[in-house]
C-alpha cells in the first residue's frame, strides 16, 4: 500500500510540475472537437438562428424540440454530423499519440523541458509510438473480443433466469472484470511507452516485453494506482454533469459552457496522472544499468549509471531514480 501511495504521490508530483501539458492537451481537444462539430453547428444554426420556436431550447432541455430539429429533413443526415465528430475524435487520439512522447520526456525531467526538446522527443518517437499503437490495438482487440465473447453467452444465460436483476448484475460484474483486464493492458503499454521514450529504445518489441514483465511483477501496485485514478475520473465526470444539470440555469449558455469545459479539462488529469505513475515506476524500477570503464587512476572497476534518454539540454540532468541502488 505504501508502495502504491508512493507511486501515486510521485506521479501526482510529476503531473503538478507539468500542468501545462494538461492545458495544451485540453486546448488540442477543444480545437479538434471544434472542427468536428462545425458541420453540426452549421446545420443547426441554419434552423435555429432566426426561429422563435428555437427559444424553447432555452427553457430547459426539451428533448422533443431537439429531436424535432434533428428529424427535420433540412437538417440533413445525422450521420454527417456524427461521422465528422467521430473522425475528429480519432484525430485527437492520433494527436495524443504524436505529442505523448514529449509528455513522458517532460515527466522524467527535473527541469522544465524546453519546447524544442519536447517536440524533438515527439518527432524522435513518432514512428515508435505508431508501432506501439498498432501492437496495442491488436492486443486490446484480441483480449476485448475474447472477453466480450465470453460475456455474451453469460448474459444470454442470465436472461433466461426469472430474476430480472440477474442480467444486470452479470453485466456489471463482467464489465468490471473487462475493465480490470483492459486497465492491466493499459499499464503494460504505458510502461512500454515510458521505456521507448526514456530509454530511447528503437526496438519497440523490447519495450513491450519489458513493459509486460514489469506489469506482471508489480501488477497489484500498478493496478491499484490506475484504478484509483479511473475512479477519480468517474467522480469528475459524474460531478461535472451533476453540477451542470442541477446548478446551471437552463437559459445560461455561458454557465453551461464553463461547467462542461471545466469538467473536460479536469477529466484529462486522471489519465495524465496514470502516465505520471508509469514514468515514476519506470524511473524507480525499469532503468537498466550499463557498465562503463572508469579511466580514473586506480583499480579498474564497474560503476552503474542509469540509462535514460539523452538529455538534450545542456543543463538537463535526469532525475535520480530512487530505485537505482536496487538496480
Amino acid at each position, binding site marked *: 500500500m505504501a508502495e502504491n501511495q508512493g507511486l501515486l504521490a510521485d506521479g501526482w508530483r510529476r503531473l503538478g510540475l507539468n500542468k501545462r501539458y494538461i492545458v495544451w492537451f485540453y486546448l488540442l481537444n477543444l480545437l479538434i472537437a471544434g472542427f468536428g462539430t462545425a458541420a453540426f453547428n452549421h446545420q443547426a444554426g441554419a434552423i435555429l438562428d432566426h426561429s422563435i420556436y428555437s427559444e424553447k431550447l432555452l427553457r430547459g432541455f426539451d428533448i*422533443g424540440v431537439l429531436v424535432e430539429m434533428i428529424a427535420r429533413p433540412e437538417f440533413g443526415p445525422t450521420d454527417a454530423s456524427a461521422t465528422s465528430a467521430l473522425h475528429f475524435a480519432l484525430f485527437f487520439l492520433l494527436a495524443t499519440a504524436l505529442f505523448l512522447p514529449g509528455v513522458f520526456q517532460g515527466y522524467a525531467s527535473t527541469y522544465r523541458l524546453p519546447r524544442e526538446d519536447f517536440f524533438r522527443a515527439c518527432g524522435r518517437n513518432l514512428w515508435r509510438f505508431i508501432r506501439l499503437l498498432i501492437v496495442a490495438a491488436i492486443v486490446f482487440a484480441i483480449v476485448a473480443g475474447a472477453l466480450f465473447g465470453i460475456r455474451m453467452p453469460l448474459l444470454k444465460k442470465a436472461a433466461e433466469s426469472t430474476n430480472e436483476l440477474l442480467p444486470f448484475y452479470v453485466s456489471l460484474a463482467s464489465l468490471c472484470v473487462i475493465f480490470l483486464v483492459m486497465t492491466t493492458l493499459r499499464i503494460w503499454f504505458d510502461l512500454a511507452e515510458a521505456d521507448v521514450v526514456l530509454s530511447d529504445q528503437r526496438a519497440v518489441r523490447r519495450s513491450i516485453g519489458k513493459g509486460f514483465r514489469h506489469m506482471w511483477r508489480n501488477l497489484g501496485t500498478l493496478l491499484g494506482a490506475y484504478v484509483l485514478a479511473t475512479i477519480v475520473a468517474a467522480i469528475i465526470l459524474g460531478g461535472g454533469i451533476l453540477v451542470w444539470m442541477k446548478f446551471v440555469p437552463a437559459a445560461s449558455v455561458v454557465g453551461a459552457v464553463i461547467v462542461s469545459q471545466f469538467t473536460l479539462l479536469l477529466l484529462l488529469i486522471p489519465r495524465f496522472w496514470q502516465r505520471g505513475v508509469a514514468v515514476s515506476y519506470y524511473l524507480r524500477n525499469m532503468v537498466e544499468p550499463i557498465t562503463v570503464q572508469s579511466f580514473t587512476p586506480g583499480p579498474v572497476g564497474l560503476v552503474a549509471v542509469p540509462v535514460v534518454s539523452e538529455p538534450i539540454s545542456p543543463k538537463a540532468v535526469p532525475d535520480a531514480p530512487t530505485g537505482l541502488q536496487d538496480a
Partner: protein
Amino acid sequence: MKMMRWIIVFLPVVTATLITVAVREHAAAAPQATSAPVAGPAANAGAAMTGGAMVMMGGPLAIPNTTTAINSATPMSQRIVHYEIDAHYNATTHTVDANEILTYHNLTGQALDHFPFHLYQNAFQPNSTFVREAKVAGNRDTGYDKWEGKEYGSEEIKSLEVVGQGDLTAQLQYVAPDDGNKDDKTVADLHLLKPIAAGQLVQFKIVFQTKFPETQARSGWKHDFVLGGQWFPKVGVWWHGAWNCHQYHAMTEFFADFGVYDVKLTVPQYEIVGASGLRIGEASNSDNTKTYTYHADDIHDFAWTASPRYKVKESVYQAQMGPVQMRILMQPAHWSQVDRHEKILRESLEQFESRYGPYPYKTITLVDPEDAAAGGMEYPTFITGDTSWFMPEGLYEPEVVIEHEFGHQYWYGMVATNEFEDAWMDEGINSYTEVKVLDAILGKSTSIMNEAGATLGEREEQRLGYISAANLDPIAQKAYEYYSYNSYGGITYGKTASVLLTLEGIIGEDTMAKAMQVYFMKYRFTHPTKEDFLKTIEEVSGRNLRWYFDQAIYGSPVMDYKVLKIDSFPVNWYEKTAGSGKDDKNTVYRSYVWLQRKDSFVMPVDVEIKFDNGEKVRERWDGASRWTKFIYEKKAKVESAEIDPDHTIQIDRDNFDNSYTQEENKKPVHKVENYWLFITQWVGQALAWWAV
C-alpha cells in the same frame, strides 16, 4: 501484492464460474410446472357456472342477460355471443386444452350459412401472413431474422359440433380473405349444413388446443409467466352486410362482438391468476391443480395471465356507476412501483369518467408482465403495463403505458371499432385522449419525462411519431396496408393524435371535449365507423369540417407552412438620409412579410407580425395559394413574423420555419452546440484514454 497478479488472472474465471452457477440456481429455483390433464370431451364443458352468472346449459338457447360483472341493472350491449370455455393450462408445454361452447345470436337480419372463426395463435408459424409481413415491414417484438422453435404457436380445432347439425369438423376450411396466403391458418370458415335463420340462435361446441409461443405480439409465455391473449376460436363479426373476419396481420389487432363470457381456467396449484371479468369461483383439484371461474358481461374478448411469482395488490375505486375492484399483479422486482401503478390507474379512471363517461365494469386488472413483449396491451377489463426494475420517478413510462392501455377500455373496449380496418379509431383516438389525460395528470410538457432537467411532453412525442412518417400513408387505411410498421405507428397513433389536437384549434377545445363525450356515450357498446366519429364532431361543433377531414383523415397531404422572408426598407430609400438612424422614429418603412405553403395541405392560418416599436398585427391567410405577402407602411420595421402564434397546429411538419426573426439569436444554437461539443471532446478523450 504479488498475489495480485494471480487474482487478476483468476478473477475473470472465478466470476464467470460464479455467474454460471448463479444463473443455473435461479433457473432451478423456478417452480416446476406440473402437467395439467388434457381436457375431456366437449360434453364435459357443460358444467353449470356458479355465482350470479346464469348460464343456459343444455336448455333452450339464449344469450344470458346477466349483470354480475357490471355496475348496471341491465345489460349494456346488444349481446351477440356467449362463450363458455373450460380450459386447462399445461405450464410445461405452454398449451391450453379446452372445450368451448359458443352461442351465437343471429341478429344480422338474414340467414347465415357459414361462420368464420379467428384462430389467432396460428399466426406464429413461419409461413403465416403475420410472420411474412413482420419480416418485410417490421414488427414491435421480433423481425424474424431466423426462425426459432419457441416462436411457434398454434390453435387447432380438434372437433366442432353444431348443435342440431352434428359434427362439422370436416367442413372447416382455412381461408385467407386478405391476401390469399394458402399457408395462413388464422381464419377458418365453417359451412353449415342448414343456414341459421335471422333471429335464431346457434350453438357451436368446439374442442381445441392452443400452443402459445414465447411472448410475441402481447401473447405467450416467458419463463414461468404466461399471457393468454387471443387464445380461443373466436367468431367473426357480421358488419355492414358481410362477415368481417380478417387474417391476423403483423400490424393489426382485433374485432369481435359483445357478449358474455364464462370461463373456467384450470392451472397448476402454484399459479397466481388474473383475467378479464369477475372471479366468481375458485376450487382446488385433487391433481395438484386449481380451477378459477370467471364471468364477464358486455365485453368482446377474454384474456388471462398466470405466474407463480406475481405479487398482488387489490383496492377499490368508487366509480360513477359503482365500485370497481382494482387488481394489480406485479413482478416481484417491481413491487416498489406498485403504488405508482395504482396511482396512475386510479387517476386514469377519474380522468376518463369525468371527461368521457362512466366505467361500468366491476373490475380492472392491471398486469405487470414478465416480458416487455407482453407489455402494453389491452383486453376488456384487463391491461398489461410495462416497466423495469430501474425506473426513476421522473421517467413516466409505466404511467404512459398504463394510461394508454386503460384508455383502450373506452376506445376499443366499449367503443369497439374495427381494429383491422380503422386502427386509428382505437389507437389514434386513444393517443389523443392520452395527451389530454396525461397533460392533466403529469403536466403539459413533462408528461413523458421530467428527469434531471430533461423534459418531454406527450403531445410532442405524438408529433414526433407523426413527422417521422408524415407522407407515407393516410390515416383512414386498413392497418395491414400501411407501408411499414413505422408508418403504421407514426400515422395511426401520432398523426391521429396531432390531427385531433389541431382540430381543437379549429372548433375550440371545449367543443372538442364535448364532441368526444357525445361520441363515447352514443357509440359505447357498438361498432362505430369512421364517419360516425367524424359526423359526431361536425354535429357537435355545428361546422362543416370536410375540408379538414378530407385532407387530414382520408388523404395524405402534409402540412408545412413557412415564413419565407421578412424585409423592411425606408419608403424614401432614395434619399440620402433614409434609414441613416438620424431620424429613425419618423422614418416610414415599407415592410414585407412573405409566407409560403411548402406542401399540399391547405389550411387557414393566423400570422402575428411584430414591429420594432412593440406593435403587433394579426393576419389570417387562407393558404389557398402557394405563397402570399403582407405589406405595411409604418414608422417601424418588421421585427418578426410567426405563423400559428397560439401554437394550436400540431400537424405542421416543421415548427422551426413557422417563424422568422430579423435579428439572429445565437443562444439556442450555442446551447445545442455545447452538448455536441462536450460529447465529441469526451469521445476523443475516452478513445485516447484506452488507445494510447
